[in-house]
């Protein structure tokens, strides 16, 4: 084991402040974006969990955000037969999305809910993949709706209760798990119920969900997507689920105020991380400065000692990343229990990890000056 690693492990208390600073800096950089991703994912749960492989948006859509058809306008009905032209497409369904005012009996004020409309046919393309047969049947009857377990209190209803939704009487027939939404509680209903409530639009769709046959690998999906797009002639654009969710998150993160806040958080996290890590490392090096000076006396060059300090800062960074991950898992669990789902995306996780390592390396570089205090001649009385 190297001198740097042994020192870090043996004198871990000394380096604790740096590791905690890095962990907190990581949380600062990640938590807000994770919360926004979580909020967004709670709105798109039915898309993420649908049994479709491809999603059709309007040709101009850049992501899922920004209104119907991904901000590029609605997808007209005539697109549906165009999709069916592809030999591998077996099913195309639209996935409606709606909002509604929800009144529980005896509750004075309505709650705004996000309505997810799904098909209740067995193995329907819009049926979420975590729906069991019992769940599917529960919302099959007219005016039967499902809500997430986390929103029962907010909506003021229990299983079997009657409530008013957009002026119609509905019955809570299903309590789901994993559909939490901290903004507007998610409510799920069948396409038939939506039709009965008079809110179906059969001419224009937000998006189309496409199921393709014989999917073996991700490559098959990508191939069909490319072939569909080649046939599109400017009338639509096909996306894979991953592609769409990445684009949506990126779009959201770059959006005005959010991007500014996230950028600001990153800068604050970076500066605080560097200052605390630097000062901690400096303190730790100065605490061992006589030992370093004695190595200098024995002829170890200042460059070699700098290598030790840089290695030390690297390991502190690795520990900081681990601590940050641990803290983030805890925070995500806490948030989940408080009905604030968090979402994590590979890109921002990697970015945060790289930033934390950069913080520690930079702190190490700033600490190098402390080695100058280790003049071997000072060891002589």
């Amino acid at each position, binding site marked *: 084991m190297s*001198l740097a690693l*042994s*020192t870090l*492990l*043996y*004198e871990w208390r000394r380096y604790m402040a740096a590791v905690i600073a890095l962990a907190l800096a990581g949380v600062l950089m990640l938590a807000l974006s994770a919360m926004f991703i979580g909020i967004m994912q709670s709105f798109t749960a039915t898309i993420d969990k649908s049994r479709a492989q491809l999603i059709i948006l309007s040709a101009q859509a850049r992501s899922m955000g920004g209104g119907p058809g991904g901000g590029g306008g609605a997808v007209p009905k005539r697109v549906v037969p165009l999709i069916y032209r592809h030999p591998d497409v077996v099913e195309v369904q639209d996935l409606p999305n709606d909002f509604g005012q929800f009144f529980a009996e005896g509750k004075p004020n309505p709650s705004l809910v996000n309505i997810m409309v799904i098909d209740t046919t067995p193995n329907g393309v819009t049926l979420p993949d975590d729906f069991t047969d019992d769940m599917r049947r529960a919302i099959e009857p007219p005016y039967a709706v499902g809500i997430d377990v986390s929103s029962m209190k907010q909506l003021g209803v229990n299983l079997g209760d009657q409530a008013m939704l957009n002026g119609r009487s509905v019955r809570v027939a299903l309590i789901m798990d994993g559909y939490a939404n901290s903004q507007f509680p998610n409510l799920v209903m069948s396409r038939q119920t939506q039709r009965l409530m008079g809110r179906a639009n059969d001419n224009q769709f937000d998006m189309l969900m496409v199921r393709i046959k014989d999917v073996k690998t991700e490559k098959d999906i990508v191939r069909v997507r490319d072939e569909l797009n080649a046939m599109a002639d400017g009338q639509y654009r096909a996306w894979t689920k991953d592609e769409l969710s990445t684009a949506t998150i990126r779009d959201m993160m770059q959006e005005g105020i959010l991007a500014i806040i996230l950028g600001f958080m990153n800068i604050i996290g970076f500066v605080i991380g560097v200052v605390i890590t630097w000062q901690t490392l400096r303190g730790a090096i100065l605490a*061992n400065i*006589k*030992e370093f*000076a*004695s*190595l*200098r*006396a*024995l*002829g*170890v*060059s*200042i460059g*070699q000692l700098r290598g030790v300090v840089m290695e030390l800062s690297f390991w502190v960074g690795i520990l900081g990343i681990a601590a940050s991950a641990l803290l983030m898992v805890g925070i995500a669990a806490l948030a989940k229990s408080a009905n604030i789902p968090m979402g994590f995306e590979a890109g921002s996780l990697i970015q945060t990890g790289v930033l934390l390592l950069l913080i520690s390396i930079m702190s190490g570089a700033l600490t190098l000056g402390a080695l100058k205090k280790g003049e*071997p*001649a000072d*060891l*002589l*009385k």
Partner: protein
Amino acid sequence: MINPLRKKKVEIEDAPLPPPRPEEVGKRWAIEARGIKKSFKAGQVMVDVLKGIDLLIEPGEIVLVMGPSGSGKSTLLAAVSGLMKPDSGSVIALDTNLWKLPRRKIDRFRLANCGFIFQGFNLFPALTASQQVQIVLKFMKQKKAARKAAAETALKDVNLGHRLRNRPDRMSGGEKQRVAIARALAKKPKLIFADEPTSALDGENGNVVMTLLRKMAKEQGATVLCVTHDARLATFADRIITIEDGLITSTNADPALFAHHH
């Protein structure tokens, strides 16, 4: 070689040294320092710590530099060992004109040739005795197996064979200083510099440390320059140099002289 343990008439020489005596000319010295001067700024005034010192040490000699505190003995050690550049004068150590070299090369010279033992033991708290010794060898680019074996040998030589895996917090002061000696000697230096090596130790441990230092230096044929004001160390030296007020007062003082003082 001059043995100070033999009773010899004390000669108090006038400083600075006279020009080289005939027998000194052409002789090869382990350390040949000439005209060393060094001043420090103390507040507003410059203090001359070394006022032109000549120091000649034969290969394999164990030389004690003694003098009252503030006499400049540690500064002299720093100057001849390549740790602190004197204001003037030259140091030729092992045929290398030290202060003509760039700093990097002086580092390399020390790495290859010098062992240091300090008053404080300066051991890394995180490392075991074996690792303390190995770390220096590692920076000398020795292979793992070789440096492990060398560390074990060096620690056994200072009677710490049973302490290989102990960290400094589990060792006594005497043991720590012995680890420091093993660290300094494992790389088989030709020059060993010691600065008050026993002042943090009790008499018994001081004796053990000095006996080991003398034994190992003699076995390895190393030259030792040891600075101390501990008169008890006089018996371990081949020769005693006394220094006072920045000038050498004797190049071969009688050890008995120091016994008297204490």
